[in-house]
């Protein structure tokens, strides 16, 4: 039993924390998060140069990490800085390619790791509401030629940084019921393929996403990631990595939100004393601290289980996302409340941590979704 990170991981965290505190201050972040581009290409390249993206992948994929705790360490730091660059989708798409890609596809990983190729997961659909196997996007066999084997039709919802992605990881199905795990098929689809359209928009917690639709997009067999109809396991694993990343990011954001709030309780005076001297507020703060430590433990459990067999891994991951959903909203709401009116303002960094914490619950499955999933996995 050992709860210390390895030397290498501590170094990554130190490097990243230093970079964020020097280069990614709140004013910079606010400007980037509101920009038309949705993130900073320049800073994204710098993250790549620093080797941060490489920490998310194993050596066989061209990285130097890729384990649960590598992902946790990186995203916790990103959460502390509310970083909006496309780490999450790079992780998810990259892990899927690393797991199921052929040689030509795996050759793409270098571009992900150095930051030169922007990718996005195009999986969730307007009516899927987090359900992992609900895929209505159709992939039909299209004649015989190698270069035009598939015809893709469908719509994908809230694709992160969809406008800037050069390549989408798309889930579709040639067969099977709309919610069946069997039949889910993964494709790597270039942004510039004819029939791909992207409608971008800003997000409430900063950065941008897009609705992406596919209309008679013609793809070759070379676009298939893994075998046709057998994409679910890869998708599930890649999303497990993504869920772990979001949970870790949340813990980083919670720590900062808590520190801001604690500082405020110590300095803000009402009735002639610091408001932190009021027991009603002390107890709420103590509750929050306790919950954050539970969230941290949940992330440790999920990170430790990432390499375990499927059921153990997925239960721990869903337990963590449930915990983070519940605790993230609690921390966000309590921090705003304890700040009072000033907590409602855009100018206060705390407000942006609160928004991010709540919106994390809307990515890759919320508290209710993961609680149900935890129950289902327990039955299997």
């Amino acid at each position: 039993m050992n709860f210390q990170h390895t030397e290498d991981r501590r170094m990554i965290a130190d490097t990243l924390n230093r970079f964020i505190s020097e280069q990614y201050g709140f004013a910079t972040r606010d400007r980037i998060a509101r920009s038309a581009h949705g993130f900073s290409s320049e800073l994204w390249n710098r993250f790549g140069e620093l080797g941060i993206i490489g920490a998310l992948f194993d050596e066989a994929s061209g990285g130097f990490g890729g384990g649960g705790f590598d992902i946790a360490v990186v995203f916790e730091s990103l959460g502390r800085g509310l970083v909006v660059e496309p780490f999450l989708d790079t992780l998810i798409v990259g892990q899927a390619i690393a797991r199921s890609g052929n040689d030509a596809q795996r050759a793409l990983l270098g571009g992900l790791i150095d930051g030169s190729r922007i990718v996005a997961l195009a999986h969730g659909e307007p009516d899927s509401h987090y359900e992992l196997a609900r895929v209505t996007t159709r992939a039909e066999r299209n004649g015989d030629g190698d270069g035009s084997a598939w015809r893709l039709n469908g719509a994908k919802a809230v694709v992160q940084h969809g406008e800037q992605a050069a390549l989408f990881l798309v889930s579709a199905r040639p067969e099977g019921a709309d919610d069946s795990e069997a039949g889910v098929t993964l494709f790597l689809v270039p942004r510039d393929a004819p029939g791909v359209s992207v409608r971008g928009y800003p997000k409430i917690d900063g950065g941008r996403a897009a609705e992406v639709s596919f209309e008679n997009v013609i793809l070759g067999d070379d676009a298939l990631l893994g075998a046709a109809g057998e994409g679910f396991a890869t998708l599930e694993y890649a999303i497990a990595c993504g869920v772990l990343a979001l949970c870790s990011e949340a813990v980083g954001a919670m720590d900062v939100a808590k520190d801001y709030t604690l500082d405020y309780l110590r300095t803000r005076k009402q009735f002639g004393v610091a408001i932190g001297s009021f027991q009603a507020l002390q107890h709420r703060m103590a509750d929050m601290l306790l919950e954050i430590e539970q969230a941290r433990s949940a992330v440790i459990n999920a990170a430790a289980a990432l390499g375990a067999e499927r059921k153990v891994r997925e239960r721990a991951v869903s337990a963590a996302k449930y915990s983070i959903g519940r605790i993230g909203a609690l921390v966000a709401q309590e921090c705003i409340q304890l700040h009072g009116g000033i907590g409602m303002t855009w100018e206060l960094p705390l407000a942006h941590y609160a928004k991010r914490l709540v919106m994390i619950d809307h990515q890759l499955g919320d508290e209710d979704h993961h609680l149900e999933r935890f129950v289902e996995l327990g039955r299997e």
Partner: protein
Amino acid sequence: MDLNFTPEEEAFRAEVLAFLRDKLPRRLADKVHGGRRLTREDMAEWHAILNERGWLANHWPKEYGGPGWNAVQKFIFENECALAGAPRVVPFGVNMLGPVLIKYGSDAQKRHWLPRILDGSDWWCQGYSEPGAGSDLASVKTTAVRGVDADGEHYIVNGQKTWTTLGHYANMIFCLVRTATDVRKQEGISFLLIDMKTPGVEVRPIITLDGEHEVNEVFFTDVRVPAANLVGEENKGWTYAKYLLTYERTNIAGVGFSVAAFNRLRKIAAKQRRNGRPLADDPSFAARMARVEIDLENMKTTNLRVIAAVAGGGVPGAESSMLKIRGTEIRQEISSLTRRAMGPYAQPFIEEALHDGYQGAPVGPDEAASAASQYFNNRKLSIFGGSNEIQKNIISKMILGL
């Protein structure tokens, strides 16, 4: 980062499991698992079995008869004992007084009292709380006035203690008493050992809402206590009492108790039915169970983090307050779900069914007999040992610095 126990720790666990398999009487485990009430003899029996193996006083250093375990070993031991259904070790002598005597007692006191704790010659109870001093422990009013007579130096004790757990089984009580009134309230307290057979000591039962006689009131009227029974220095008792409250609280979360209770709940939920299917498949009940299961998994890891910090030389300060709060909340939630699982059969209360020798047929499911009474009994968890609100005060002061 590694959540697994080392091979040595796993070997230790195997040793504990083998011991429990060989030595824990089935009869006792059945009573504990069934939520039936333990007698004084039951508790003494388990106490003696542990002592024979040298594992009773697992917090004590080796030189005083402890096994010399580290925090991880203690966690494993207590966890496995709880899972196996071993009776809880009555903590007052072994876990509370023992460490205080070892740290602050005189050599004569250690030589006399410590072996008697181990071999069961003395059954200790705790004289801390008073009718007017619950969470505000430092405002104790029971007085001890020092004097000399033909038989030597002594104290005359007058006052009342309350919530004295298992005081009706005890022959000795350690008490916080007031020896000075003209100072800050924390500074006039002394730590006194009192023989309960001394004239002037009277024990009266308090029956709790579940019908159980577990706690008592203890009255002191001109009770003569030899001065040799003062622990440490006069008026320094608050320091010793506080030491007790921070000493070795790494197991305060009661993870093992919760896991055992949750396993029991899982079995019950598989058997009980609602809407034509097992309760475990009822979406709202299953969600309640899943929430507490996840909370428990999270807390287990939080507990291990604290233990790892202690094993690395740290002190479990206010972190144990977090474990106390969440640990008791989880235990209470599990007993609440167990009660709910019984449906209408939570209502019958056949008290005799909780005692040895009951021959009657059960009413409703087997587990129903104790479900509601245990739920009510467990409301104490968030009140005793420093109420959960007091724990939050401690967190605010010690961790948050508010």
